[in-house]
């Protein structure tokens, strides 16, 4: 049975999927009227494509000029910098992430292993005598020794903590005087 001409038309457009296109191919080899129809459709197609067209470059240029005039009258809205899209290649992002992790860990490692500077703690007593303890930050034994020294003596009038030269400190919160009872409760 011959396929509908509509299918033959779709066939020459390559719009008949496998395996039906193969079946049509087989049919065309044996059916003269169908193959003539296909031949004629192809002829129509070829003659349509053979027809010359006007050159598109001159109108393209003219229209371009007209649109350029439009562009000149156009006021650009400046995109705010925070709305600008930034594109960074993925490998670069990866590299940056690795770098941040590396530098970060290096800093943490440095802080943990850095050579602790010694701190001088001088206590003045009422009688004018003075005790000087030199401790190294992080050294538990020396801190224990200091605490023992402070405890063994009667409450000193003045305790001076001498930080090493060049060390910088920062203030955290306001100095506050607490009564012992409140202090305990807060703890």
């Amino acid at each position, binding site marked *: 049975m011959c396929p509908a001409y509509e299918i033959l038309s779709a066939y020459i457009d390559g719009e008949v999927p496998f395996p039906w296109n193969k079946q049509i191919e087989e049919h065309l080899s044996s059916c003269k009227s169908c193959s003539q129809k296909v031949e004629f459709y192809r002829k129509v197609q070829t003659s349509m494509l*053979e027809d010359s067209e006007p050159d598109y470059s001159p109108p393209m240029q003219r229209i371009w000029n007209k649109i350029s005039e439009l562009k000149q009258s156009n006021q650009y809205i400046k995109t705010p910098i925070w709305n600008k899209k930034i594109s960074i290649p993925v490998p670069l992002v990866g590299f940056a992430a690795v770098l941040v992790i590396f530098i970060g860990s290096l800093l943490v490692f440095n802080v943990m292993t850095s050579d602790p500077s010694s701190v001088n703690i001088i206590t003045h007593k009422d009688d004018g005598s003075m005790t000087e303890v030199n401790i190294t930050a992080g050294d538990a034994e020396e801190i224990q020794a200091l605490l023992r020294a402070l405890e063994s003596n009667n409450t000193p009038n003045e305790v001076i903590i001498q930080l090493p030269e060049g060390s910088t400190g920062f203030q955290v919160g306001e100095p506050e005087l607490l009564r012992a009872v409140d202090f305990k409760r807060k703890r």
Partner: protein
Amino acid sequence: MYVSKDFTISFDKIYEKLFPLIYRIAYRIVGDPGIAEDVSQEAFIKYYERGIPLPDIDQTKYWLIRVVKNISFNHEKKKTRERKMFSKLREEGPKFSESGEKEVIKKETKKMVKEALLELPYNLRVVLVLKEYGKMSYKEIGSAIGISEGNVKVRVFRGREKLAKLLEGRI
């Protein structure tokens, strides 16, 4: 009018890429270089004034084709009236070339094809033009003008059949 600078840059690229195709389609639908230029200009200005880029080049192409189709339709209505009035005046005598009669016949056939195409009903012509001159698949044509793939198939077939009838015995 406010159009962002980013859009203007993307517009330039789209114009360069799609103008030849849009002009070609417009020319084949309306059959006249001057009108095709007007139609293309209107379509691209409409796109520029839209000011918002479409997701990709294909969507932009479909959008422009839809606009061209709609604008051409207005010209079509006008042209049908004029065609009836001036059809005899527009006929040109055959031009003889140096390569002889064969060349003349070929030229005449081409002119005939162009004329026959313009004889087709508008809906069939648009689809056949997109198929043959736009080199688009049935699926693409369907997306561009908003009809089903099956409908495209039917229209291409009917257009081809009509064109074949008009050209029968001459090609």
